[in-house]
């Protein structure tokens, strides 16, 4: 399905594959960082990294599959990822005073 005459497409396909392999590997690494931690912020960092890599991967795959109209998806991911990371930070910060209160509450 993918090989057009002149095989220019094949050429393109192989370079997409190379770059998507790099992206997937990096996603794996980001996941490892997310699982290893150690701090919550490391994990947020990993999540953010993972998100941007997913966006890139999706853009590449959209072209690999020859359906560039699916770029909408990559765009949506980029938006959602940003909101997600900000939300994590916001809620984590707003918890700081509350956490102290909880600790005293538990003993009482």
């Amino acid at each position, binding site marked *: 399905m993918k090989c057009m005459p002149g095989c220019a497409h094949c050429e393109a396909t192989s370079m997409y594959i190379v770059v998507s392999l790099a992206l*997937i590997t990096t996603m794996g690494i980001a996941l490892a960082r997310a699982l290893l931690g150690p701090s919550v912020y490391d994990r947020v960092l990993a999540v953010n990294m993972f*998100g941007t890599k997913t966006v890139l991967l999706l853009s590449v795959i959209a072209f690999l599959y020859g359906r560039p109209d699916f770029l909408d998806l990559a765009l949506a991911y980029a*938006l959602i990822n940003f909101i997600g990371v900000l939300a994590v930070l916001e809620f*984590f910060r707003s918890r700081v005073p509350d956490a102290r209160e909880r600790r005293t509450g538990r003993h009482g």
Partner: protein
Amino acid sequence: MTALFGVFLLSLLVITAIGIVRATNLFVAVMLMGIASLLIAANFFILDAADVALTEAAVGAGVATVLFLGALSLTTSRERAPSANALVSGIVTVIAALIVIYATFDKPQFGDPNAPVHTHVAPWYLDKTPEYIDIPNVVTAVLGSYRSYDTMGEVFVVFTAGIGVLFLLGTRRVSRSLEEESKINLGLRHHLIPRTIGRLVIPFILLFGLYVQFHGEYGPGGAFQAGAIIAASLILYALLEGERHALELLPPQVLLFMMAGGALFYAAVGIAGMLLGGNFLDFSVLLGDSVKGQQIGILLVEFGVGVTVTGTLLSIYHAFAARNTR
């Protein structure tokens, strides 16, 4: 080659899932959920389900994360008691997993074009949609017209969840505590860079949400995704500008009206079909030309869906956030 992507992503997914279950910090578990959701969505994309991938990303990675975080900020982020019956449960689940895997052995192979799913009802949708409805996105056609009744049910499920959260948590406590809220020098709204960029980005996200809403007949997208994206952008607004501004923009009463109004609007379109001589949700009688009627019907009901989803998700978010500021 691309199948290997799938295998790789799925393996990552399983690792993430194990990480989620093992994490004792619930914040971490929720963040890993976000990653898992992105992985699942990427998988859906590879499996040729663009619409579902978009939904999973918007709902799973976006809205679900925010809701979980909202709930966590009201409860506690540490899982305390170790699981008491871990061993027994583990054995039970392993046995169950083996049974499920055993049951898969007769399944049609992955992607087999002769599998029953591809030979019975589905080809009809693919063949007849150009004739009856004439929009490119068959998923939207099935969702909006052929199985429109399910979609209406789904809108009411969302509505029910909204009602439920309002019933449990209420929306009334906001105004009292706003001054305290601004005293706490925490949160994004006191930081210049996120705030500026956020302000820059929000209109863009809203625009994109509208694009997804009205482009759903031609490309991946539709009202659920759009509703989730629009709600997410307004949640971002609330994060950056504070609850008060967000609620001034869209007061709870308006959100409630959106929740109920969208669902009612959906049903009203269906009833219009009934009054014009068709069955419930028969859009072909809406206009003289039945194909045009179907298209306009799908557009209208999708509008209803978008309004309800946006209203409900925002109501739920505010219900959590309002408790948060007490």
